[in-house]
């Protein structure tokens, strides 16, 4: 098969990066939320290119399905008078961008400097491998994560409950 992977990668990268930038720069929250969803889909596509289908599907399920909706709810609940949304901090905004870029550059340099022993092409781990790892080697973290989720649920309910005057 002809080598479509490189142009495909660039398309997928674009699908990820452009909405990300839009998300951050959009004035209206709804638009930035939509951009985020697009970005998550992009990420799912990246997983696909990395032969991690299971991950891609779970990514779509969780991020696009659950978390984005959650954020949409949050946006709805905290409807603000649209007028005064000031996009950035006046003070820190101009500092944040260069800082982020500097961060990116340094990380890139560090990564480029580092040497990884890499096998030539992407390998193809099946779902069975994942499940083996997940349920015997990492069983304990798995249980732990469930605990974390439990705590998060209880916490979220408590925090967001409408305060009843006692």
């Amino acid at each position, binding site marked *: 098969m002809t080598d479509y992977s490189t142009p495909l990668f660039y398309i997928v990268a674009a699908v990820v990066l452009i909405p990300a930038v839009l998300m951050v720069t959009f004035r209206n929250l709804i638009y930035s939320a939509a951009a985020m969803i697009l970005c998550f889909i992009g990420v799912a596509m990246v997983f696909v290119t990395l032969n991690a289908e299971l991950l891609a599907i779970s990514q779509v399920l969780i991020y696009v399905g659950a978390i984005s909706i959650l954020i949409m709810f949050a946006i709805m609940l905290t409807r603000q008078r649209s007028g005064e949304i000031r996009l950035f901090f006046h003070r*820190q905004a101009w*500092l944040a961008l260069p*800082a982020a870029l500097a*961060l990116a550059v340094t990380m890139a340099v560090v990564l480029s*400097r580092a040497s990884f022993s890499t096998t030539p092409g992407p390998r193809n781990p099946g779902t069975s491998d994942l499940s083996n790892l997940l349920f015997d080697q990492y069983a304990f973290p798995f249980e732990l994560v469930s605990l974390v989720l439990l705590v998060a649920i209880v916490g979220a309910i408590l925090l967001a409950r409408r305060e009843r005057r006692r």
Partner: protein
Amino acid sequence: MKAAVLLIPLLPLLSFAFTGLLGRRYLKERSHYVSVAAVGISWLLSMYVLVEVERGQTLSWQLYSWIAVGRFSVDIGFLVDQLTAVMLLVVSTVGFMVHVYSIGYMHGDKGYYRFFAYINLFMFSMFMLVLANNFLLLYVFWEAVGLCSYLLIAFWFPKRSAANAGMKAFLVNRVGDFGFSLGIMLIFITLGTLSYSGVFASASTLSGGMATAICLLLFTGAVGKSAQFPLHVWLPDAMEGPTPVSSLIHAATMVNAGVYMVARSNPLFAQSHTAMMVVAIIGTFTAIFAATIAMVQNDIKKVLAYSTISQLGYMFLALGVGAWTAAIFHLLAHGFFKGLLFLCSGSVIHALGGEQDMRKMGGLKRKTKITYWTFVIGALALSGFPGLSGFFSKDAVLTGAFAEGYWYFWIVALITVLLTAFYSFRLIFMTFHGEPRTDPKVFAHAHESPRVMTVPLILLAIPTVIGGLMLGIPPENGHIDRLLHHIFEAAIPAGEHVFGPLTLSLMIISALVGIAGILLAWHLYERCPWLPNAACKRAGRLYTLLLNKYYIDEIYAAVIINPLRGFCGWLWRFVDAGVIDGAVNGAGWLAMGAGRLLRPIQSGKVQGYLFSMFLGLLALMVAYLLFNI
């Protein structure tokens, strides 16, 4: 003899305690019985001791060891010899007379008991001073006497001037005592002992320079106590105290302590000729210096005060030139007639209801007969009228100075004789002769003082008249010379003095000069009273200079007191509060400041924190890149 010597100081001490404690509530106006009796008995005992000493019996008796620390051991002890006997004579007699006199003078005063308590304490300290057998004990009672003079000068303490005068007296004495204590320390360091016998025995081992240093330090004490030139400023102000005090302390006893100390340490002084010269120079200068001021003073007691300073100058002159016995003879005579003069001035002030300014007196001759005649006797003795005690003792001093070859001292002394005669009779003419210048009401009931005051005057007048004849004839080896010869033999310069034509001519010269002074005063103040004012106007600035006592007090204030006070103020504000406290509080403020500086970092903005975290991450990575940690 031993019992007598112990009792002499003990009785006044006991009566001090008795009157002091019980005086306020119980004794009140009866508090004089115990104290006068005590001093009277002491007087009798002193006479007994004098007679014993005349018969050649001396005593050196050590009561107990006072301080014993390592090499330094000092004990409380008595030394009674001819010199002590003479001093006891003066102190006890004048003291007893003043006690009797004070009954009348202090009558009705609110602090009656306090007066007698203090004056008894003074008698105790003076007796102990004279009886002490070592330098430290002398120093102890030297300051105790200074304390009593402080208490008695500031007796009427509600009066600000009296309180200031008291403090001034104590402080100036203290300056003198500073030198005295250093002298004592030097003696101990070089000779290892402080008792008279020990020190005088090893006096010859002293090197010239050390002897001079010691003598000069001791002499600073004498200058302070006997009000000689640099430290004389306190005596005129001491006249704030009641007159009996001025008579006893500031004329007859305490001020002589300086002369006694120098006389007592004659073996030391004999070792250093320079020290003797310093004593003589200061003595002569003070004599003429004080005499010039006395001429223009208008307060009756101030005149007598300056006259005392001047006569003390005479005594130090005599000590300086080596005429030791003459100095003591003059001390004795001066004690009597100056005490008498002060008591007479007291009775004059008493008669005029407290008036002390001579310009508001006059014509008291008729009113106060006894005071007048005793005053005249005293004045004649003071100005060296032939026949009276003053004549013989002053003449002894003059001939002593001339015979030793110090003719320049003799000339200055002769001028002072003239001035002395002048101011003493100026005083008499202004107070007793001429028309009364007091306002009629006061003058109307001016009366002679009660008998309890006039009897002591008469009793003191007797020795002034016959004292000279008894002790001074023939001059140079009269009774007093023979008595004190043994004491001063270590210090008497060689050469035999016989009563020859030289001494006779000197006597005549000084007598004539004295009489000339009297006539001058008579001419100015009796015959033409307008002359003095004219003379003063013409003299102008000189007169004001003398009137203000050469501005010595003002100079001291400007040179020492005010700069010292200013410096101390600066010292406290700048160094203490500024530097040290500044540093301490500064450290405190520093901690606070640093805290306040760092506070804004906790701005509470989440973004701020995130931002600094990122910067931290960035820095770490850059560090990794650059230094490849």
